């Protein structure tokens, strides 16, 4: 080594680290020296590890050389150096070769080393052993596991745990010792203390032992139950982490078999008042989680005590406990806000908590508990402090208020005043203002009462708004909504002001907006003024503005001549396309271009959505967002870092509300429809009128999983059966579904069946059955049967064996019903009561449901059966009351006639009584729907 590098490295006592090569050379020379200088070696190892922690890495050859030099240091008996050596071995074993060579030195230490280094030695085994050598550590690990010394025992347990994936057979032999380690309270020996600290036994060995024991027995339900029984009594577990592990074990058990819950109820009650906050918390988490899926099994007292426990955690000084309790409350608030209203005083006091994360959670939770009664006071509480908090916090609050406005349209005045106040007086960036404007746009769209006031205030706002994007959006909104208001000329003035004062982007947006006022019905005189305004604008210095003005003038002219002309629809469009479908169609059009775009793009096959449809979809999506609890992920995460962890969390997110998967189903339905239209025979039926929700026709665990979708055409019906073959060794040939009408004679005439030629193991395919129907609504149910020929599959080729004739077989699946709901699309209306009263035909029906289901389950079923949109936040049945009223709105898929339903549910000991009152433009539809509700 040159003196130069040596110097450099001495200078680097702290702070800057020498470069990788210097460290490498220093290590190589120092470690191979004799006698070993323990102080220098530990210093060098420390530098080496710092380098690795910075993210530097060594090529494999160098790493291997380092690894071997370091293992030479085993000759030196200094414990202090030895600990550093083990650290280095653990870090280097990942990047160097032949790490097994160090095993014998490590094992020698485990047998004869001092108590101080034994745990380090044991834990380093994880890094050096592999599948073929893991068994060699069996005897050593076993004797370490039963050691009286907690650190040694814990080290052995953790190492066994780490080795489990590669040495399950070996580790399984420790089951008895592990079991003993759980109950054994190991404390530190009082003699032989090294150093100046006196270790306290936390009995954490119990936690490690319990974790390992679970892994060993996880497939044996009886053994797990025994574990809970054995370890839950008489304070067997002293360590709180171990206790939490036990709570989690109970959680696992009841999630697999919810019937077990009853047996654990008293235990859980006891745990709720455990002296450890963490145990209380975990138990409360378990109870509230479980309640979302199995609300019937859980007694209301238990749930209430869980909430009380959380409530008391809100007042403890420890930040993490408060935070954790708030997180749970926040999740409850998304599903059953009424249950946590008792916590409101505590939540209110946390709004001003110095910890921003806590105050954020508190306020959003509080807002979700909002009911028609307390909204006003909630809003006034927020108004007090909203101006003092940071931007992203404000955005969270605005989002929460926005949800409130959708759920409590009757409280629009308070909410609107609040929004206007923050819009005008609040300081904030683009994102903040944009959120408020979006909230206002939502109100304009979904809360008709608030429309004019909101629009007027938006007009004021654009007078001094600095953000182009927001301005353009507001101008578009004014153009869309303004003409139908009572005083359209007011908006014209504001819009024209923009043309005079703003830049080209805004001016062109304003032109489009203005042109929409030309056809206003309320105020015919407006038309002439608009034309003269547009004429003036047609001399604008910007091309785009001029073009738009000229086109608008042309349109207005031709629309005035002929009211049914195309120009009319171009000026005031009342439908738009399904954008997902449009996008995918355009993509295929562009990519499959064969005649250099001579064939024009065909838009007729794309679903057109009217204003009402879009609103319905929008509202649904917003309500979904609310229940899905996206708050946590959308607010606090930045995009782009989503990993599988997140996705799995979403998938099994225990707080998904009833309609969480609807949107996904929407997309799926679009896909199915596209598949359908690619089949020649079906294409002849003309445009698809409506597709139903996907209904399961078998248990999801059945051998063949069948799900049905009903597609309606003007004169035809097509049943689509999606069949999944879950068998691993059998292929199905010529799969068909026979549909036999339950009542003869049938009004439907079967046309053809498109079978699946071959369904390979674990594949999914669709079989179609088409019928001819009259133009009227036809409702029928069909007995269905799956018919197929089974053939054994050659596992090598994944094809059936040659010459295998197979067996004819059939499989019963549930009946498929074509009911009134299939003729209905969900639709939105702002003022439900008014819309309901205006509809002419009324029909009433009464049902009595004897099944033991909760109100919520029944509401979910109603929504699916009727395909209507639940309005005014009635899709959530309160869990503390025995009655509920659902308001549903929809329209006929073929004719577009409106239908509204008010369904009253009363739960008694005998079952649930339903009174459905329906009103519709179409009397038959109404009668059919109301009478075919269940």
């Amino acid at each position, binding site marked *: 080594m040159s003196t130069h590098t040596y110097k450099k490295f001495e200078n680097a006592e*702290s*702070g800057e680290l020498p470069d990788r090569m210097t460290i490498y050379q220093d290590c190589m020379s120092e470690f191979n020296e004799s006698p070993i200088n*323990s*102080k220098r070696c*530990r210093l060098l190892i*420390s*530098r080496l590890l710092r380098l690795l*922690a910075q*993210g530097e890495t060594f090529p494999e050859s160098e790493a291997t050389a380092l690894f071997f030099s370091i293992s030479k240091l085993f000759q030196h008996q200094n414990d*202090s*150096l030895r*600990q*550093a050596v083990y650290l280095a071995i653990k870090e280097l074993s990942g990047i160097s070769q032949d790490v097994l060579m160090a095993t014998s030195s490590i094992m020698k230490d485990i047998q004869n080393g001092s108590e101080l280094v034994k*745990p380090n030695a044991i834990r380093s085994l*994880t890094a050096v052993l592999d599948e073929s050598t893991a068994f060699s550590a069996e005897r050593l690990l076993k004797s370490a596991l039963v050691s009286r010394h907690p*650190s040694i025992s814990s*080290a052995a347990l*953790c190492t066994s*745990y*780490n*080795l*489990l*994936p590669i040495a399950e057979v070996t580790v399984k032999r420790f089951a008895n010792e592990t079991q003993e380690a759980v109950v054994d309270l190991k404390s530190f020996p009082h003699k032989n*203390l*090294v*150093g*100046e*600290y006196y*270790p*306290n*036994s*936390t009995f*954490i060995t119990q936690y*490690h032992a319990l*974790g*390992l024991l679970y892994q060993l027995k*996880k497939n044996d339900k009886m053994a797990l139950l025994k574990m809970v029984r054995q370890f839950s009594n008489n304070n067997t577990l002293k360590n709180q982490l171990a206790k939490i592990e036990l709570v*989690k074990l109970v959680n696992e058990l009841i999630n697999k078999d919810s019937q077990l819950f009853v047996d654990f109820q008293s235990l859980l009650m006891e745990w709720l008042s455990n002296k450890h906050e963490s145990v209380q*918390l975990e138990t409360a*988490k378990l109870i509230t989680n479980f309640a979302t899926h199995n609300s019937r099994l859980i007694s209301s007292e238990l749930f209430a005590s869980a909430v009380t426990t959380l409530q008391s955690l809100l007042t403890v000084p*420890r*930040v*993490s*406990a408060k935070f*954790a309790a708030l*997180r749970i409350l926040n999740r409850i608030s998304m599903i059953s806000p009424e249950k946590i209203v008792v916590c409101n005083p505590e939540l209110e006091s946390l709004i001003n908590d110095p*910890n921003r*994360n*806590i105050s954020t959670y508190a306020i959003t939770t509080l807002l979700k508990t909002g009911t028609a009664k307390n909204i006003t006071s909630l809003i006034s509480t927020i108004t007090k402090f909203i101006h003092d908090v940071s931007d992203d916090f404000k955005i969270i609050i605005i989002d929460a208020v926005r949800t409130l406005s959708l759920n409590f349209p009757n409280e629009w005045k308070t909410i609107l005043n609040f929004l206007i106040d923050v819009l005008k007086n609040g300081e904030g960036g683009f994102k903040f203002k944009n959120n408020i404007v979006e909230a206002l746009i939502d109100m304009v769209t979904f809360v008709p009462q608030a429309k004019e006031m909101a629009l007027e205030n938006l007009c004021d706002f654009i007078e001094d708004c600095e953000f182009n994007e927001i301005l353009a959006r507001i101008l578009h909104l004014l153009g869309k909504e303004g003409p139908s208001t009572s005083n359209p000329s007011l908006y014209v003035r504001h819009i024209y002001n923009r043309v005079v004062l703003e830049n080209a982007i805004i001016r062109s947006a304003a032109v489009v907006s203005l042109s929409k006022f030309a056809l206003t019905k309320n105020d015919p005189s407006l038309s002439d003024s608009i034309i003269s305004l547009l004429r003036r604008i047609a001399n604008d210095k910007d091309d785009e503005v001029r073009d738009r003005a000229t086109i608008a003038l042309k349109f207005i002219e031709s629309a005035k001549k002929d009211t049914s002309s195309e120009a009319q629809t171009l000026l005031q469009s009342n439908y738009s396309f399904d954008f997902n479908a449009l996008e995918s169609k355009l993509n295929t059009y562009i990519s499959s271009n064969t005649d250099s775009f001579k064939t024009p793009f065909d838009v007729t096959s794309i679903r057109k959505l009217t204003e009402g449809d879009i609103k319905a979809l929008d509202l649904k999506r917003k309500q979904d967002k609310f229940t899905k609890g996206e708050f*946590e*992920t959308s607010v*606090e*995460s*930045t995009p782009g*870092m*989503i990993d*599988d*962890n*997140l996705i799995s*969390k979403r998938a099994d997110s225990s707080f998904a509300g009833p309609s969480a998967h609807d949107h996904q189903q929407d997309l799926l339905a679009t896909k199915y429809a596209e598949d359908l239209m690619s089949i020649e025979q079906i294409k002849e039926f003309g445009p698809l009128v409506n597709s139903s929700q996907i209904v399961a026709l078998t248990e999801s665990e059945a051998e063949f999983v069948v799900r049905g979708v009903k597609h309606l055409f003007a004169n035809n019906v097509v049943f689509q059966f999606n069949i999944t073959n879950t068998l691993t060794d059998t292929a199905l040939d010529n799969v068909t579904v026979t549909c036999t009408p339950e009542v003869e004679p049938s009004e439907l005439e079967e046309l053809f069946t498109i079978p699946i030629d071959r369904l390979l193991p674990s594949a999914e395919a669709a079989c179609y059955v088409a019928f001819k129907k009259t133009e009227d609504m036809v409702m029928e149910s069909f007995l269905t049967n799956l018919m197929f020929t089974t053939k054994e599959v050659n596992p090598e080729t994944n094809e059936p064996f040659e010459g295998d004739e197979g067996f004819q077989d059939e499989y019963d699946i549930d009946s498929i019903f074509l009911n009134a709901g299939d003729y209905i699309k969900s639709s939105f209306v702002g003022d439900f009561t008014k819309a309901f009263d205006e509809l002419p035909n009324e029909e009433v029906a009464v049902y009595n449901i004897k099944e033991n289901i909760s109100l919520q389950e029944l509401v979910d079923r109603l929504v699916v059966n009727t395909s209507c949109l639940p309005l005014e936040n009635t899709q959530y049945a309160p869990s503390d009351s025995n009655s509920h009223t659902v308001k549903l709105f929809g329209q006929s898929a073929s004719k577009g006639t409106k239908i509204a339903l008010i369904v009253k549910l009363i739960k008694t000991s005998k079952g649930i009584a339903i009174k459905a009152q329906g009103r519709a433009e179409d009397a038959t539809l109404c009668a059919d729907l109301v009478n075919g509700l269940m």
Partner: protein
Amino acid sequence: MSSLSLYSVQAVLILDNKGDRIHAKYYQSPHVAEDARKGLMQNVKRQKEFEKRLFQKTHKQDSEIMVFEDRLVFYREYLDVTLCLIGSMDENEIVLQQAFTAFKDSLDLILNSGIDKRNIQEHYDMVLLAIDETVDNGIILETDPATIASRVTKPPTNEPQMSLDLDKGLLGAWGFAKSKLQERLQQGM
């Protein structure tokens, strides 16, 4: 991964006052096949970007705990360093808090003159040992700071000269033995 898994800690970080790492360790369950190892940022570039983003959220925000990119983060900002511990969203917050406190307090114990960047860099070997005694491959190993500190050795002093100078006679040998014994006893206390 089952919620009963002992692998509850995802990472332990020590960042300086610019958000650069002083120490960073991301834990992965050992001996799990490569393709099954999901998520937690295997490449150093992504790790460092994550740390930068994290630092922007933690710097001058004294809230101790937060949810960041679908992970629970516990942190404490000192004069020129920030200590962080990261765990999964489904983990019990108080448990992770305890692990974090153990990590933080054990550093407090072993770094005599307080937690700051220079001290951590100078005693990096001890800091590393303390972390290693707190979390092993993501398993919380110990939550008592004193126990952790008791298992962290100081760097060896220069090689003790054990050879006795017999010229000084028995008295000298007695004196040497006595001083050694006293030293041991003091250490023992």
